[in-house]
């Protein structure tokens, strides 16, 4: 029951890949790691890949919305990709899709952000 956070920078895009479970307990780790990376580097956009995220609850929505606000305050954008059906419904219920773009794969998302 843990969360692995893998971060890779391609140009000014920070790719964050989540592996495991994102709940109240693990959301603190994600929050501090992403917050630090966004503040300490010249990252402009965030691509969040949920391909290997097996579980998420509303604590995950909170931390994702928090990072969305952080990156858009700097004039950047956030795209979320590879969402499983149950997590998709959480996004839908919260209305997060109205502000955060969603793509099926990392490749598609990178294309939108102007890479590859």
């Amino acid at each position: 029951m843990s969360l692995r956070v893998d971060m890779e920078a391609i140009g000014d895009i920070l790719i964050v890949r989540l592996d495991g479970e994102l709940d109240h307990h693990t959301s603190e780790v994600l929050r501090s790691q992403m917050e630090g990376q966004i503040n300490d580097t010249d990252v402009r956009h965030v691509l969040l890949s949920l391909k290997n995220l097996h579980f998420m609850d509303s604590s995950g929505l909170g931390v994702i919305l928090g990072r969305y606000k952080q990156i858009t305050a700097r004039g950047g954008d956030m795209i979320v990709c590879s969402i499983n059906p149950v997590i998709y419904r959480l996004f839908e219920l919260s209305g997060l899709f109205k502000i955060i773009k969603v793509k099926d794969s990392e490749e598609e998302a990178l294309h939108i952000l102007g890479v590859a």
Partner: protein
Amino acid sequence: MEKGKMNFMELNFAARSENEGFARIAVAAFLSRLPLNLDEMEEIKTVVSEAVTNAIIHGYEEDEQGAVMISTFYDQYAVEIVIEDHGIGIADVEEARQPLFTTKPELERSGMGFTIMENFMDVMEITTEIGRGTRIRMVKNLVKNEMLCN
């Protein structure tokens, strides 16, 4: 639920965030013999996580001395999950149920917990008393698919 025809289990654990994962896995394991599909099982794990997280963050305000109780019952028709704390209680239940309402925005809470519980389960009831605690009762029906086939 009719006594004798139902199965049940009870859990009592410390209000610590690392127990959130344990709680949802334990409930899912207890229900593993039921005809629930993968998405339905994920929905149950999600609502358990929401209610336990509420108990820890709001009920006990992250005081790890508190205890969270989960009772789970099932028979051939439905699953019932009751999650209780002896925390501070909820002052305004109607307000708490509103989507996106949270008393703790500084903790990046989304305010979606009760909305998710309502949407993922067939019944969601809140009983609360200031200074005494909160009890969440949720039911998921198992018979929907069978009735459609008949």
